[in-house]
């Protein structure tokens, strides 16, 4: 029972706080950066080979940013799931 009390305290006593929400907010922040960079690149009147190379390069960055949004959302879900599991286990 002591272990369960410790685990319950881990999720209930605020040691984790609203980490899931915090991570979800981070995911939103990264999505906003992605939108900002995509918009900034689209607004520049830049053509030619160097510009094309940059846009191709930027497309990879957009994908990586989208991947980071996904990773942070996964982490938020993992925190939530962890809190549920421990709560149910301790209840």
């Amino acid at each position, binding site marked *: 029972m*002591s*272990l*369960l009390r*410790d*685990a319950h*305290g*881990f*999720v209930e006593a605020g*040691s*984790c*706080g609203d*980490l899931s929400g*915090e*991570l979800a907010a*981070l995911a939103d*922040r*990264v999505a906003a*950066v992605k939108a*900002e*960079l995509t918009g*900034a*690149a689209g*607004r*520049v*009147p*830049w*053509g*030619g*080979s*160097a*510009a*094309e*190379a*940059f*846009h*191709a*390069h*930027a497309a990879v*960055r957009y994908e*990586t*940013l989208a*991947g*980071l949004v996904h*990773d*942070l959302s*996964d*982490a938020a*879900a*993992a*925190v939530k*799931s*962890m809190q549920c*599991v*421990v709560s149910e*286990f*301790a209840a």
Partner: protein
Amino acid sequence: MNGSSCGGYEVDDAALTGLSESWAKGGAEISAVAQTAAAVLAKVRGAADGGGSTAQFAATDTIAALARAGQSALALAGALAQDAQGLAQCARAYREAEACVKQRIDATGGGAGSNQGSAPRGGQRPNTSAPRAQAPSEPAGTEQVQDWINQAFAILEANGVPADQLDEAGVLLIIEHESSGNPDAENDWDSNWQAGHASKGLMQCIDTTFDEFQLPGHGDIFNPVDNIIAGVRYAISRYGSISNVPGVRAVADGGEYVGY
């Protein structure tokens, strides 16, 4: 090379600088995300350690997911910061090249419509074998590009091209706009590429143009000197001199570069 060989080009330096600043800001933002993710990870680890074995077990997946997100964010922040530096360097290179060609053309009384050319290159005779860029897919510095141009000019003069048709600043301007000084640049997007003729190398020549204007012993399109030799011979054949290339003339007149 416009139409036959290279794509058109236009850029607003201020906008390019703005893009670099946006990219730097994005990098800083992602760096802050990485720091917050690391703090969250530390918090979960600390709580798990203090929560006994059940908490530690339950936190395993969370810790792995957080570590993955933090590492991705950190790597991305560094990459964006590097991109921003590259963009800023690119904007600087455009400004320098344009200022240089304007100065050279003004100094020699050339200008729009002039076939006199700007001052020919100096008389140095550099090495005949040009090295490939040390870092493929990376732009070379202006000094390195100038060195390649001088090597190419020496070979061109030795093959009968009059010095007054050669213009280092004009070629530098073309290179900065066409490939940003990257000898390994290969266009995989424009109309030439769609037609099955990718523009390649420093001066963005397509294979058929390169084959037509290369000199014997200089047949590697990605070799910077070989590429300049073919690109310059093509430009002189079509426009009479480097200073008469439309993009060079446009910049000399205070306008924007256009592809050749």
